[in-house]
């Protein structure tokens, strides 16, 4: 009997009686990271990296959660469980499960590039690799993040010069902190929407620092927004909240912005291609360096990527899950924030 089963509640390890990122309520879970499509409410217990616990407590309320460090070994019913860095967002982990010589790695979401904020991705050897495939098409090739940050800053400067506020749409967990970490503080003040502020507060308890992020609450004088940068999640960009920031330019930062059709459809003033997921090359590299013979593809263009991997000699199959990926907006990472101003 294989170590991991694909069930309608999610990935399941019968020997340890734990589910990994399940989408229906179960008693015991291992959570790769705190994004809403992986860490869902109403589970009996949660085991994840410490940083994910901090964010999950803020998002899911009073939960029974335990944190571990990267590389720390846990034994459950003879199954060895280890969380290893996935480089996706703070606290994100690949989960390694080993028992009787069978080794599985469940990648969660990952990227290979070091973003300087979260612990960089670490290849883990295994016989069975469960990979995501959000951007698993050869048309997705990311430019270096440094170049993208530089073009964001140039655009911000231009807007500043015109007395406009610069608004960037980004997920409130992961992308927002990555931007806060990388953007220059020389150009102007940086404000964040309430949902991002709350995430920052949670991450601060885990030791992260965002000294330049100012909470954009009602007390902030509108004049200070001229020339400033405001980070906000998709839910806020689509709402009347945005009106208070005008006159402004609105850009989006996402891997989906690499397609012209998406850029045009979303009607942003600018689209910047920057993702916390691996691109085509990254996914192929990760699969190769896992050394796995069996690959299970979830979360995205799973059927196409599995077919490609089979043509490359892997035993690969697509697994339908309830993770985001194929949906552009699936990684809705915050429940609509009631106190967002």
């Amino acid at each position: 009997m294989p170590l991991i089963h694909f069930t309608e509640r999610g990935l399941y390890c019968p020997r340890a009686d734990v589910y990994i990122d399940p989408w229906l309520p179960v008693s015991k879970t291992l959570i790769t990271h705190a994004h809403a499509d992986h860490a869902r409410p109403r589970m009996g217990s949660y085991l994840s990296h410490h940083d994910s616990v901090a964010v999950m407590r803020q998002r899911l309320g009073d939960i029974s959660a335990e944190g571990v460090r990267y590389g720390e070994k846990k034994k459950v019913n003879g199954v060895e469980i280890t969380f290893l860095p996935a480089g996706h967002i703070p606290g994100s982990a690949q989960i390694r499960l080993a028992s009787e010589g069978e080794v599985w790695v469940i990648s969660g979401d990952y990227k290979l590039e070091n973003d300087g904020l979260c612990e960089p991705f670490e290849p883990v050897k295994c016989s069975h690799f469960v990979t995501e495939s959000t951007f698993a098409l050869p048309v997705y090739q990311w430019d270096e993040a440094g170049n993208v940050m530089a073009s964001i800053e140039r655009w911000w400067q231009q807007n500043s010069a015109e007395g406009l506020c610069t608004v960037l749409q980004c997920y409130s967990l992961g992308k927002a902190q990555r931007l806060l970490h990388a953007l220059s503080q020389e150009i102007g003040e940086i404000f964040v929407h309430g949902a991002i502020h709350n995430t920052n507060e949670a991450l601060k308890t885990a030791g992260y620092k965002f000294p330049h992020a100012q909470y954009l609450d009602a007390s902030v004088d509108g004049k200070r927004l001229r020339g400033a940068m405001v980070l906000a999640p998709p839910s806020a960009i689509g709402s009347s909240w945005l009106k208070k920031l005008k006159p402004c330019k609105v850009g989006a930062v996402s891997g989906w912005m690499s397609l012209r059709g998406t850029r045009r459809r979303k009607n942003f003033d600018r689209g910047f291609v920057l993702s916390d997921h691996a691109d085509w090359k990254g996914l192929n590299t990760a699969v190769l360096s896992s050394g796995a013979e069996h690959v299970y593809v979830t979360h995205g263009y799973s059927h196409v990527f599995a077919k490609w991997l089979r043509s490359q000699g892997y035993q690969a199959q697509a697994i339908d899950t309830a993770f985001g990926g194929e949906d552009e907006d699936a990684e809705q990472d915050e429940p609509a924030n009631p106190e967002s101003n």
Partner: protein
Amino acid sequence: MQAFAQLIAQIDASSGTNAKVAALLDYLHQSSDDDKLWCIALLSGKRPPRPVRSSLLRELAAQVSGIPLWLVEESYHVVGDLAETAALLTPTNEEQSELSLSELMQELGALRKMDDEAAGAYIRATWQKLSRYERFVFNKLITGGFRIGVSQRLMVRALARYLDEDPNTIAHRLMGAWSPGDVQFEDLLRNPRPNENLSRPYPFYLAYPLEEAPDQLGELGQWQVEYKWDGIRGQLICRKGKLYLWSRGEELVTERYPELGELDGSAWPDVVIDGEILAYKEGKPLPFGLLQKRIGRKKPGKKVQEEVPVVLKAYDLLEWHGEDIRHKALRERRKKLEILVDQVNSSNILLSPKLEVETWEQAAALRTECRALAAEGLMIKHLDGEYKTGRKRGEWWKWKVDPMSIDAVLIYAMRGHGRRANLFSDYTFAVWKASELVPIAKAYSGLSDKEMAEVDRFVKRNTIERFGPVRSVQPELVFELGFEGIAESKRHKSGIALRFPRMLRWRKDKAAAEANSLEDVKAFLRAQART
């Protein structure tokens, strides 16, 4: 090429029309006259026939990126644009091209005569010299399909500002047959000699749909009411005894319709008539479906001419004895048109009648009978109005008949193109035949962006089977489809074809079982036959 690619990128990135016009104006200021002409031609759809087959582009993209063709194909389904797919697949580089747009277009002219091997070598070599965005623009140019978010109207606005001329004058100068190879910017736009171009048509005046009750328009006596014929809009020009027929798509179609093109114009004054090319037999218009047999044929044979003869229903006169009379009131133009039609005395040029109505109620009653006449509704035109350029509000209204409608179930979805790339936006709908769902129509318009995103999510989560870009989905969602006509069709499994199907409403209140049956749909066919 660099400047042109930059222009396209700017237009692409900006949502407002002012920013687009500013980008165009910038380009006009900085580029040579030859480049300007090419830019105008390309952006207004006057492109040379495509030099390269799209299958060659697919093969090259596969070769250069080292991935199999099937994966190029899968990528294309998601990206929704082959030129962009190829640009994204090929490796990035930092180069930018020094070639000017007109030089590049000259090279592309030569490309058409090359065999696949030579063309492939040229394209691969050029790709290496271009940045990713330039490569996208280049691929667009070599595959022909160049459509970006610039309307003719914006181009005209930018040119009018650049040349300090009236936009209507510019719009007229851009009309008709010209190509960047055989005209100078100077002669075409700055100082055109009058009557140099005998075939040049006028820009069409287009009506706005009437959404409110017509009595909002005031006194009926100020308006001319006509049928809205269901054919193709055309302009028949006679100058110096020679005839030219233009379709609204700015295509010269003189030879396609010999009934009009071969009339003897030697005794006619110099005139330009605006009207509808209409399939017409034994004193009655034929349904649009039949005219379709003529539209694609460059040189129609005797048989099809006998089966589907066409006439021009003339409704306006734009030029009279060589003089542009568009600024005159409709009532005056109409008088001259009546004189002309009488004088020409041809059974192929018929006056579109003014309808004798005294109240809006009478007009409304006539409108309900339009279908029997193969008309789409009524046209309402202000008698004092001049003939304007393009779609303008206020003096010309189209008041179409209400569509027929049915409730149908979504069964297939396909990823869209352009703005709808990577979004399941093209749908196939079915109705019940006993316990089976039979496809009845495809539709992709009528939903809001928000609704479309919602359907997209449904499709991704309720896929049954995948066939390339198409997915079959759980038959759960019901939509009210509107359509303008219905005809029997052997090509369709359902045995019928709907004309202009579109989504009127998402019927979230209905379950699939409550959708209409094929019998219900066929009832429309019988009803139509009775009238």
